[in-house]
Structures are given as structure tokens and as C-alpha cells.
């Protein structure tokens, strides 16, 4: 048991080994470990994010579905309104058309009756003239009395 050169050699080997560990072992292993823990943290964060966005998407989907349902109801309502309107409009058009037809018919009737009245008046005037001529037993010159007859015709 004595102190000898082994001490110095051991110190040298120790220093070299420390240097080696510091240079070629420690940084790589610790680096890999840190990188892995970073990766895991990122993975966990991404999972959280995914869950959140999934929840958000679900909410959004629900809102969209609700809106769509509301709009569908609205569209059906509108369609019904529109159909009612159309029916109303058609009804209105039909009644005005009917009224118009009735008015036209009345006009026609009036026209016809006035025409008939005219011809009737003329005939009555002629008959009156004939009757008067028979009564007077004498020929009345229609030409000489034409203005008289027409005056009469307008009076009837």
C-alpha cells in the first residue's frame, strides 16, 4: 500500500473519461430525452386542441342544423302564404273578369234593346202612318210627310 504513479494515471484517465462523457455521451442522451418530452407535450397539446375543435365543430354543426330547420320551416310557411296569395289573386281576377263579362253582356243587352227599340219605334211610326192613312182613306205621300214621320218617330 503506497502512493505511486497510479494516482497520476488514474487522474488522467478520469479527466479524459469526464471529457468524453461531456462531449459524446451526455448531450446526446439528454437531448434525445428532452426532444422526446417536447414531442410528448406537443402530442398532448395537439390532442387537447383536437378535442376542443371537435367540440366547437359539434356546436357549429348544431347551430347550422338548427338554422337549417328554421329556414325550412320559414320556406314552407312562405310557400303556403304564396299559394294562398295565388289562390286569392286568381279568385280576384276571376271575379273581375266575371264582372267585366257581366258588364259587357249588359252593354250588349242595352245596345240590343236600344236597337230593337229603334226598329220598333220605326215600325210603330210606319204602322201609325199606315193607320193614319187608312183612317184618312187617303194616300199620304210618304215623301211629302217624311219629315213629319221622322219627327213623330223621334217623339215616340
Amino acid at each position: 500500500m503506497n502512493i505511486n504513479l497510479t494516482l497520476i494515471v488514474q487522474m488522467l484517465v478520469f479527466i479524459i473519461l469526464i471529457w468524453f462523457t461531456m462531449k459524446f455521451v451526455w448531450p446526446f442522451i439528454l437531448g434525445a430525452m428532452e426532444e422526446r418530452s417536447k414531442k410528448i407535450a406537443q402530442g398532448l397539446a395537439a390532442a387537447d386542441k383536437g378535442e376542443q375543435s371537435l367540440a366547437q365543430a359539434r356546436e357549429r354543426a348544431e347551430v347550422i342544423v338548427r338554422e337549417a330547420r328554421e329556414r325550412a320551416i320559414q320556406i314552407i310557411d312562405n310557400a303556403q302564404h304564396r299559394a294562398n296569395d295565388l289562390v286569392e289573386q286568381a279568385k280576384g281576377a276571376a271575379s273581375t273578369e266575371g264582372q267585366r263579362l257581366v258588364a259587357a253582356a249588359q252593354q250588349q243587352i242595352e245596345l240590343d234593346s236600344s236597337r230593337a227599340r229603334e226598329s220598333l219605334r220605326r215600325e210603330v211610326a210606319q204602322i201609325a202612318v199606315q193607320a193614319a192613312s187608312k183612317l184618312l182613306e187617303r194616300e199620304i205621300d210618304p215623301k211629302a210627310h217624311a219629315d213629319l214621320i221622322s219627327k213623330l218617330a223621334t217623339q215616340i
Partner: protein
Amino acid sequence: MAAAESTPNAGEYILHHLTFLSNKTPHGIVDFSVINLDSVFFAVLLAVAFGGSFYLAARKATAGVPGKFQNFVELVVEFVDNQVKDSFHGTSKVIAPLALTIFCWVFLFNAMDLLPVDLLPGLARGAGIEHLKVVPSTDINVTFGMSLTVFILIIYYSIKMKGLGGFIKELTLQPFSSKNVAVQALLVPINLLLELVTLFARPVSLALRLFGNLYAGEMIFLLLALLTLSSGFGGLLTVGGWLGVIAQTVLGLLWAIFHILVITLQAFIFMVLTVVYLAMANEHH
């Protein structure tokens, strides 16, 4: 082992096992012309084993799913890293790798103690090598080599962090201090003495603790080996011989199992104390 030749007596056997393989017989307590070839050989061999295996793991280290060996290496590295982070709050890039080196290397040194005491020396003798000590941490040169390196680092960090003046102040102005200049001047030598003892006690205690534990452990194995030393294979014919074999097996097993704790603990203590000493050197008082 040597039963075929002349059976050594107990003293010779133990002395033989405690002799290093040196380039020449040492004279006196300190002799720097002598080198313990066996200690150096096993220290370098285990350094290569540690450095090589960890280097391979480091080179293949991925951030993905680690393999079994990478897992093991990462376990050790993380364990050491946590120990360092617990006590050392500086920014040094040396301390953590230093701690890893100490822990693994000392553990491997100590683990050599679990090999049967006569296995490698016996083989070596077969190859013509007379003496072989296989446990480097039972060589006081090895343990002091490590603790003195740590000591140099302690001095280096003390001066680096506090400056030479700060370091000298720390050695002279505490633990006793006074506002009175004359009293302070009286206290300086006392403080210096106390602080120097504290300072030098660190490497000495580091080295001697490891050496003492492992030396004692090896000694127990050697003493247990004495139980069957004199009988040789002929001992198997006698009841006493069988008792010796059984006693050595059972006691050796028990001691080896207990020793697993000791070798790990000593490696751990060496590492933790190194980190603590360096942390203290790094801190301002």
C-alpha cells in the same frame, strides 16, 4: 487454488491477494516510479466499457420510442441528472457529466468485487502473472486519483465563481468574524486553519470512504475463502471439509448480496458528495 503446489497459510494467502501487480517493488510510502499495472488496466478497461456502451447508446439515441438499452441508459442519466439538479443550481456543463462518469465508473469498479476473489487472479497465475488485484477501488491511488481531480475542480470553481480574493476571504473571514480589526486579525489564522482542514477533508474523506468500504468488503471475501483454503479437493472427503464448503457458499452468498447494496451506495455517495462539494464551491456565502 494453489493446493497442488504448496498450500499457503492464511497470512500468505491474504497478503498475496493484497499485493498489486507493479512494475517493481515499491520502497517507502510514496514512490512515483512505481505503477500498479492491474489497477490501471482494470480502470481503463471499465472506462472503455462505460464510455463505449454509453457512447453507442448516445449515438443511436432517438427521441422516438427508445430501445431497451437506450431506456436503461436514459434511466441512469435521468437519475444522475435529478441528483445534480437537486443540489447544484449553477450553469456548469461539466458537473452533470462528471457525476454520471463518477457514478457509473465507480459502480463498475466496485462491481468487480462481486467476481469470485480467486477467479481472475487464478487465471492470471495460469498465464504467468503472479499478482492481480481486480477491484480498482481497493487501490488507494485510484480513489485518491478521483478525489484529487474533484478537489482540483472544487478549487477551480471556487476561484472562478468568487475570484481569488473571494476564495481567500472565504477561507480567512469565517466562521469567526469580528468588527474589531485587531480581533479579526487574531481570528484569521484560526479561521484559515479550520477552513483548510474542512477543505482538505473533502478529497481525503471521499477517497478513504470508498477505499475503506471496498477494501473491507474484499477482505471479508478473502476471509470467507480461507474456510476452504487448507482443504483443497481432498477436503470433500471429510465432514469438516464439507462444512467449510457449505459455510463459505452460504456466507459468501449473503455477503455478496449485501455487497450489491454497498457497491451501489458507495458509488452513489461518491457522486452525491462530489456534486454537493462543487455546488458549495459554486455558491456565494
